[in-house]
């Protein structure tokens, strides 16, 4: 930003005649500092890999081998569970899915005469299907309610399995499950072979989890869903189908892990799948660090080994697990692995605090974009969004009555009205968050049933009154995720422009949670336009900004509108700004439109004056 820090660049610098340039903050990528931590981490992973491979040599007694196989199957269960946890739901039924897997393969092998390998696959499929069924009924529940629903489900499964004593062996369960048949020279009666096999399966599970968190677009969408469901929906992620898929995958992995364990210890009984066992699996995930890939792995290994090392009885293990959970909640809520990472970082990097560089987006000059990223797409104005007599009611409380509104391509349309007039509800209705109780919504002339994800796909983007960003991620990640979820990932040049036009290029690697209010506002706008929308709904983008920031933000919104040529529907209380920016105004009061037309005409309307000033 060549020495232009004092030049706020409002309009003047646009005509100052420099060559077109791009700050290209987005595509440049983060400068990779020479970081000793990276080397230490790499060393750590190599050490872990060596230990994993050498483990059967280090722990060679039969008892020890049992423990390490158990640890490996626990890694499978915990890794599977972590997929759901990362998508924002705490399940208390992972051990139950493991048990369902164990029972399925056990029954198929013992009673139907299947070979183990197809039975193992069937175990996973069966657990996965039941997981999808449970998810269909209960995934709309949140937090505690979802936990209780899975807990109840797990109790029902135990009762059902205990009751059908003829088939499943009732309360005492099934015994004498065979080991898997040998493959070539590998005999599964040898716990070492079993261990390596379980490690391979665990690696596969970790691979699946990687795909379901950051490897695939599906996974990235899922993590955004886990962090902020409303934001994810606004970006076009359909919450329920995605969570359902996550739950199915997680249960599938659980079923595989459970089956492996059951055929290793050659038995399975209802107490193996009690809710308290599921709690232990959840502890492994949370304690290890549910946000990191290797966290649940570390959690499972540590929590399998420590009670064994202490030679603890079941009761002492329980106390230990409990204390561990309490310590986790109060001392290392992001998990053991991040704790380790931080500790090492502190030792190595000499306590250098990670403070934010003193840059501010407000000081950043407007870039000289002589060329818009592309031309406005519509030569002549047509109606892109229309509401025909829409109504929105919550029970007896009617918020919008018979509202009709038409938005033309490329226009900036203001929506004003006193607090409680129903402006935000109108946005919520259009984006499918609030119910459409009557009337119809048309996009490009076609009637649609608004749902968050479908509206986002239709090219409609919105911001929220209180700026919603992914707090724990950097500005870059926020914008990249927003762009990707709306389907605009590849176009770096466009994202460079987005970062630039919203004045965030100096803050590109700053964590979004540390931004000032103005910067957050700009970030939400940047995220909304990252998908190159046709329709942009801005909900009070200037609320809470001081005078200087208001002027800045106003110019940036104008710039965005001119460059993108998208239709903008703007809710704003700062009337002077609305009058200046908008070519048309609609005034809403008590859920009814009381005026509509050119800004000057609306400002003179007696009904509007009365609504604002009172009679």
């Amino acid at each position, binding site marked *: 930003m060549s020495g232009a820090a004092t030049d706020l660049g409002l309009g003047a610098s646009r005509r100052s005649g420099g060559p077109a340039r791009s700050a290209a903050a987005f595509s440049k990528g983060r400068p990779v500092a020479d970081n000793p931590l990276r080397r230490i981490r790499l060393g750590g992973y190599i050490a872990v890999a060596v230990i994993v491979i050498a483990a059967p040599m280090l722990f060679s007694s039969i008892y020890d081998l049992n423990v390490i196989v158990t640890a490996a199957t626990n890694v499978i269960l915990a890794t599977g569970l972590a997929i759901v946890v990362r998508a924002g739901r*705490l399940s208390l039924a992972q051990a139950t899915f493991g048990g369902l897997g164990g029972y399925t393969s056990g029954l198929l092998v013992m009673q139907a005469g299947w070979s183990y390998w197809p039975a193992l696959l069937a175990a996973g499929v069966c657990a996965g299907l039941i997981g999808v069924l449970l998810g269909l*009924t*209960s995934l709309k*529940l*949140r*937090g*505690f*309610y979802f*936990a*209780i*629903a899975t807990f*109840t*489900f797990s*109790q*029902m499964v135990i*009762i*059902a399995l*205990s*009751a059908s*004593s003829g088939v499943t062996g*009732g309360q005492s369960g099934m015994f004498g499950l065979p080991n898997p048949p040998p493959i070539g020279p590998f005999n599964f009666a040898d716990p070492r072979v079993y261990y390596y096999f379980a490690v391979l399966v665990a690696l596969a599970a970790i691979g699946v989890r990687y795909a379901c968190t950051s490897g695939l677009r599906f996974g990235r969408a899922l993590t955004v869903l886990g962090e902020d469901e409303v934001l994810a929906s606004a970006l076009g992620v359909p919450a329920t189908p995605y969570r359902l898929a996550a739950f199915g995958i997680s249960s599938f992995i659980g079923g595989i892990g459970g089956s492996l364990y059951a055929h290793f210890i050659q038995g399975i009984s209802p107490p193996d799948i009690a809710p308290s066992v599921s*709690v232990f699996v*959840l*502890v492994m995930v*949370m304690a290890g660090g549910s946000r990191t890939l290797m966290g649940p792995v570390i959690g499972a290994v540590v929590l399998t080994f420590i009670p064994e090392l202490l030679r603890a*009885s079941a*009761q*002492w*293990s*329980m*106390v*230990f*697990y*409990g*204390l*561990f*959970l*309490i310590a*986790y*909640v*109060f001392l290392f*809520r992001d998990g053991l692995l991040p704790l380790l990472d931080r500790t090492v970082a502190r030792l190595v990097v000499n306590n250098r605090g990670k403070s934010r560089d003193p840059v501010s987006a407000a000081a950043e000059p407007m870039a000289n974009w002589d060329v818009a990223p592309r031309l406005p797409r519509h030569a002549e104005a047509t109606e892109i969004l229309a509401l025909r007599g829409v109504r929105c009611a919550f029970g007896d409380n009617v918020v919008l009555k018979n509202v009709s509104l038409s938005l033309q391509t490329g226009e900036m349309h203001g929506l004003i009205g006193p607090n409680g007039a129903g402006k935000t509800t109108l946005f919520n209705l259009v984006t499918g968050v609030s119910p459409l109780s009557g009337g119809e919504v048309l996009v490009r002339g076609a009637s649609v049933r608004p749902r968050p994800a479908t509206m986002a796909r239709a090219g409609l983007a919105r911001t929220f009154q209180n700026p919603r960003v992914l707090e724990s991620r950097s500005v870059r990640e926020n914008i990249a995720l927003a762009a990707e979820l709306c389907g605009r990932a590849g176009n770096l040049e466009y994202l460079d422009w987005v970062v630039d036009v919203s004045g965030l290029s100096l803050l590109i690697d700053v964590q979004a949670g540390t931004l000032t209010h103005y910067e957050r506002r700009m970030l939400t706008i940047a995220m909304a336009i990252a998908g190159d929308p046709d329709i942009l709904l801005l909900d009070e983008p200037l609320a809470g900004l001081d005078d200087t920031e208001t002027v800045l933000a106003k110019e940036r919104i104008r710039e965005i509108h001119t460059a993108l040529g998208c239709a903008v529907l703007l809710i704003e209380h700062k009337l002077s700004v609305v009058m200046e920016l908008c070519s048309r105004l609609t005034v809403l009061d008590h859920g009814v439109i009381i005026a509509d037309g050119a800004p000057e005409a609306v400002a003179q309307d007696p009904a509007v004056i009365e609504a604002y000033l009172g009679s």
Partner: protein
Amino acid sequence: MHLFVQQIINGILLGGMFALMSIGLSMIFGIMKTANFAYGSLYMLGGYVAYWSSVLLQAPFLVAVVIAFVVMFGAGVIVEYFGFAPLRGNEDAALIFGLGLSLVIRGGATIAWGSQNRFIMSPFEGAVFFGHFVVPAARFWAGLVSLAIVGAVYFMIERTRLGRVLRAVSDDSRRASLLGINTKAQFCFVFGLGTALSALACVFLIPVFSLLPDVDDTALYIGFAVVILGGLGSIPGCIVGAMILGLVNVMAFAYTDSSIAPIFPLAILILTLMLRPQGLLGKKGRLA
């Protein structure tokens, strides 16, 4: 017919006991919106406090009840002040803290006191007869105590100044604190009272459910089932939910195979969660 009426009576009595078991949880959950997963283990701990005070201090039954009430009130305040209060606003953390605390208490109780059944000499022996119908005295008294306690809690919340304050805190604790209510103290009080009532429940229910470390699962489970079925934050809902669960339980055991009978109350619970997560008498809340 006679058998059927007897079953209805049994069901209502069991419902009364369920209500007693869950009133403390209902208060904590309803007013503070805290899903206390340590409720069951605190309930069990209350029973042990009464048991040891009757064994070691030779306290008569009612004195033991009072000791348990007071001690567990203090324990509840401590758990709230050091445990749940710092976690308020983070539902997942509170849930996990509750799970952790319950594991510690249950494991500790098993280590310290063994896993055998304990009994306190209860003044309620024998049976009460109503014409042809028989009711065990312990259950009868548990039902009466339950009615009295639920009535008292209802009166306190709906009719007293303290109740108005608590309702304000429940409605919007931040706004209540701006009005000069010490919400932290109110939360401690509610948590303490809820825990103390659970201890009371445990003591009165020892003749029915007995006292051993495993009883915590029963209490936690029934507590949550009743609260979810009846509706979050509704004291009458607590009674209704408990009655429904009690009747379903008794009828299921009377008329179906005992191995699958326990599945019916669970099915009712899961149906409630699916179809009406706010519960029968609850208001549609933010949580569900």
